[in-house]
């Protein structure tokens, strides 16, 4: 049986925790409306909205137990969930710390109320969460039965995980990871071993992150790229050989041999797969030859625990941004740019950038920060022939300057932030925002974030895709793909 997990963005979680644990030691209640994401790995319940039950108004004395949600509150919120196609999860708190479970009174109330709620919600899950300090337990009612919640993930700058009880001990890490385990702890190393990470783009930036993730012991990678290695990639593509790019054919003067070279060249994800396997023979690896704008491919990324975007198209940025918000996955966009004046050859402001993107308002949404140009989205949808017919559009085939060491600056920053955040090691008061290094000035700058509460990805409005999960379509097109080894 697949496990059920719960994901909630840190601002929503903070709001819920403030209500449940105001310091009075009393019991309080709320309801969380959830979207659902189903995959072969797990079913994720994605917190979209928190409805606070006001003490003595919505959360009242109960005849059968201590307190309960009022019938008016339950009707109002369940009706809202039904209309929105969302699941319904009642929340309350118990005292204590580090472990929690439902009382017999709680379980009896589930049995009385949830069959009817399941009918009202027409198939969306219903259930309950009970919190203590640093612990949560859950019951998930579906048409197929009642299931225990495995754990809850708080998605923020630091990723936090809550269980019904705190695991008492972890197996010792492999000697292969001894030195880093002194920092991460055995529990941290275990988390990395269970992590499933997505990488969009396995070129100059993605190939670096790919190897580093494999070396630190990440257990599973989904790598997506449709491009093949070319001789011009060789100086930046980690692990690539001249044979991968069929250099001896591609560098011939005869077009037929060049074409044969391109045909026989290795896909970038296959090279990345080889590199990752050398670094970590036991990991699971999905080398996906395809375009992330294809729906079938993008859906392979919906159940990852963290997502890196290392491709620099507006289309892939839009799909990445949608995945982060719709499926509540923390993400990171990585890149570097070397502007060179075409006429004079003068080198402009060279920069490397890391953009953390977290699934809530002011979390770094690429749409809100003007990083997905709407005209480029339109242009990139055109065929090469159509682009030429429009003529004024910049030719996407023109090579942009790129240097492995500049890529490495952004990638190292991104990989560090992933490791520290994923293992909960970032300081809580660290400054939010994107980070840019202007290499020629040897200067790091923080870019303050912009946000639009009405945004279709991160916003709070009814049309936002935030935490909608499988209910809404990703901004992708139909098409076919090729899957690589595992």
């Amino acid at each position, binding site marked *: 049986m697949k496990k059920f997990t719960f994901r909630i963005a840190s601002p929503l979680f903070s709001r819920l925790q403030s209500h449940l644990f105001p310091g009075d030691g009393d019991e309080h209640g709320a309801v969380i409306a959830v979207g659902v994401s189903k995959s072969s790995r797990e079913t994720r319940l994605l917190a979209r909205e928190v409805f606070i039950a006001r003490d003595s108004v919505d959360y009242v004395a109960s005849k059968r137990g201590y307190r309960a949600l009022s019938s008016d509150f339950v009707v109002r919120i369940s009706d809202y969930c039904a209309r929105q196609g969302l699941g319904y999860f009642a929340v309350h708190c118990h005292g204590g710390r580090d472990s929690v479970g439902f009382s017999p009174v709680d379980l009896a109330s589930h049995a009385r109320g949830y069959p009817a709620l399941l009918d009202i919600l027409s198939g969306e899950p219903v259930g309950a969460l009970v919190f203590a300090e640093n612990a949560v337990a859950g019951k998930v009612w579906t048409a197929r039965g009642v299931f225990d919640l495995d754990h809850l993930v708080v998605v923020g700058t630091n990723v936090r995980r809550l269980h019904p009880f705190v695991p008492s001990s972890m197996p010792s890490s492999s000697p292969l990871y001894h030195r880093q385990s002194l920092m991460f702890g055995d529990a941290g190393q275990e988390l990395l071993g269970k992590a499933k990470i997505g990488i969009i783009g396995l070129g100059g930036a993605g190939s670096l992150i790919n190897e580093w993730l494999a070396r630190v012991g990440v257990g599973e990678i989904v790598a997506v790229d449709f491009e093949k290695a070319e001789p011009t990639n060789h100086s930046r593509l980690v692990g690539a050989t001249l044979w991968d790019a069929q250099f001896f054919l591609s560098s011939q003067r005869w077009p037929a041999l060049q074409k044969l070279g391109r045909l026989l060249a290795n896909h970038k994800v296959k090279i990345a797969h080889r590199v990752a396997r050398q670094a970590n023979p036991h990991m699971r690896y999905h080398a996906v030859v395809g375009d992330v*704008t294809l729906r079938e491919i993008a859906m392979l990324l919906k159940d990852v625990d963290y997502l890196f975007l290392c491709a620099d198209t507006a*289309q892939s940025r*839009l799909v990445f941004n949608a995945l982060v918000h719709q499926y509540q996955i923390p993400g990171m966009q990585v890149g570097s740019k070397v502007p060179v004046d075409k006429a004079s050859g003068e080198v402009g402001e060279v920069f490397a950038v890391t953009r953390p993107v977290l699934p809530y308002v002011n979390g770094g949404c690429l*749409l809100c920060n003007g990083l*997905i140009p*709407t*005209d480029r*989205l*339109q242009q990139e*949808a*055109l065929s090469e022939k*159509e682009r030429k*017919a*429009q*003529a*004024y559009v910049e030719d996407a085939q023109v090579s942009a300057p790129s240097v492995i060491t500049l890529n490495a600056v952004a990638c190292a920053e991104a990989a560090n932030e992933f490791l520290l955040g994923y293992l909960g090691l970032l300081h809580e008061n660290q400054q939010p925002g994107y980070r840019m290094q202007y290499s020629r000035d040897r200067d790091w700058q923080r870019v303050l974030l912009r946000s639009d509460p*009405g945004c*279709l990805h991160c916003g709070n409005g009814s*049309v936002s895709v935030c935490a909608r999960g499988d209910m809404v*379509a990703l*901004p*992708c*097109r*139909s098409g076919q793909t090729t899957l690589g080894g595992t």
Partner: protein
Amino acid sequence: MNAAVQQAVAEIRSAYSGHQVDVAPDGQDGAFVKVHDLPLGSQYAPERSWVAFRITFQYPFADVYPHYCLPNLVRKDKGALCSAFSQKTCPGPGDPEPATMVSRRSNQLNPTTDTAALKLAKVLDWMSSQ
């Protein structure tokens, strides 16, 4: 065509209900759209034309541009058309046909309010003001 593109087409049909609207899938879940017999402005010859454009699959995040109208559009006063106009071929479900391309990019597109129907109205309004 995906749901967002279908909705855009429905809004165009509604906004231009007196006009023939040809719609064809673009093979990528988007659509080629051609709205017939639209007024371009009395300063042009011809004064009326079809206007064609493509709604791509990432609409409403993707801009809807450029737009196309009859080829060899000229000003009656013999003045030159501005740089937003050029002679190209119009993409569509069949062979590309000669057309006058009108390139009006939206620099501040808001995907919640800037629909394909509104963009067409803005392009026509801009043309008539030139």
